[in-house]
């Protein structure tokens, strides 16, 4: 299987001499859902944000389908970002725009600023948006403002916005952390099934180890800015969890 994303020797230090990521090596294939687990502050979020360069790496290489994206800027960076879908913990929808406008935001990389401002999107984009609304079960909400939705609905719109890009990889930064358990499961199901349907890899940062085990094809455990576990959920033992999170009292 061809690799979609190869990360080599990735280091990030927000303050010089205090690295958050200390030499990460990871490869992502064409399909499958990867869950990145680890305690807060261990650099999971930084790692996922570096992939689409919302955060800039300090050192190392990120190869995305043959494009080295650790140092690109401007137009080149925007063209790579179009191909990477991102889902956020707090949904990050534009609150005062309608659900439809939020979805079409996913196409902004492909239409001119003037056309976007005049809300002139290609017919196929609008059709795609309605299809996605159907998939996420919000067909009746197209013209509602995003701030009128519930958390679970917002996150589904967030996922649909990312899918509007027709991405070649889908990143999700703690997509379930602000949601109740039932909605969390629904969101994970949606991420998983959309990854399969579109034949793209899905990378999810997640706190909930049980959710990770249930939905992931592969689990990456991080602690102190390093990868300490990388394998299928079945191989993840309590010993690994102790190493990833430290201590053991919380396991009982």
């Amino acid at each position, binding site marked *: 299987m061809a690799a979609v994303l190869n990360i080599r020797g990735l280091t990030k230090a927000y303050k010089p001499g205090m690295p958050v990521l200390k030499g990460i090596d990871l490869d992502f294939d064409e399909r499958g859902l990867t869950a990145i687990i680890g305690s807060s502050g261990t650099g999971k979020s930084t790692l996922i944000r570096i992939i689409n360069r919302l955060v800039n790496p300090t050192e190392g290489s990120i190869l995305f389908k043959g494009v080295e994206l650790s140092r690109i800027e401007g137009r080149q960076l925007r*063209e790579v970002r179009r191909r990477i879908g991102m889902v956020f913990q707090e949904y990050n*929808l*534009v609150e005062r725009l309608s659900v439809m406008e939020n979805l079409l935001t996913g196409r*902004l*990389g492909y239409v001119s600023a003037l056309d976007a*401002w005049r809300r002139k999107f290609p017919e196929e984009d609008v059709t795609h948006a309605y299809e996605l609304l159907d998939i996420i079960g919000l067909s009746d909400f197209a013209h509602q403002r995003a701030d009128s939705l519930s958390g679970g609905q917002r996150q589904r719109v967030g996922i649909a*916005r990312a899918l509007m890009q027709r991405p070649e990889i889908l990143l999700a930064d703690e997509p379930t952390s602000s949601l109740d358990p039932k909605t969390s499961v629904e969101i994970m199901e949606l991420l998983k099934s959309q990854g399969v349907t579109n034949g793209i890899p899905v990378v999810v940062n997640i706190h909930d180890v049980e959710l990770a085990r249930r939905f992931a094809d592969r689990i990456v455990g991080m602690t102190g800015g390093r990868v300490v576990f990388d394998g299928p959920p079945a191989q993840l033992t309590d010993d690994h969890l102790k190493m990833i999170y430290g201590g053991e009292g919380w396991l009982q």
Partner: protein
Amino acid sequence: MSGARLGPTARGKRSGIRPFHSSWQAKLLAIVVAAYAVYALGQLEFSAERFVKGLDNGARFLARMFPPSYRNGDQIVTGFVESMQIAVLATFFGVMLSLPIAVLGARNLMPAWATWPARLIVTLCRAFNPVIVAIVFIKAVGFGALAGVLALIVASVGFVGKLFMEAIEEISMKQIEAVRATGAPFLSVVTYGVLPQVIGRLVGFCTYQLDANLRNSTMVGIVGAGGIGAALFAGFQRFEYDFVLAILITIIAVVLLGEFASNYVKRIFHV
């Protein structure tokens, strides 16, 4: 029970710590300001006697204003039509100029090389009272409404530009981050990420500025930059105080109308 035993100990330890701390600098500052106010009063030779005499003059002046006279009604109408035109044109062009300047000046969107010049422009526009700016423009383009419009455009950029810049700096960067992550070009980030977050407040600033320009446009006329101000000034000079009162009443009416109009506009935009 243990709490009761701990209580006095805890209190004992904290004796001497005051929950609210007022610094000696703040006290000193208050004393200095009060002392200067007394000193300045003495310097300007204010006295109770002069004040009472002034009140007397004022009463006579007010008496000559009544009843208001509308004998030159057409003068009032043409003056106000011109003032209104000055206000609307100045607000429109002022806001149009303020938008790009505010985006360039917002520190959360732009690097320092863009924010400094933009902030300098806004500060310069705010530096002088519109009347002074109007005098400068009269020297440049001659007497008349054009000088008034230009002067009030400057004032509008200074005011709307600054408020709008601050509004942009308070937006949620999470929404911006999400729009950026789709690979959107900068202008689309502005129209889809920034504008929706500030448009409500922008409408508020515009209606407020229209209101302010309406009042300012009556003022720039006094120095010869067009509008009702010219008629007002002439009235004062010819001691036609009843005519002056007629103009003043009309100004109040127009400003009130402007207030209603801006409320109406705000309702349309749901802000």
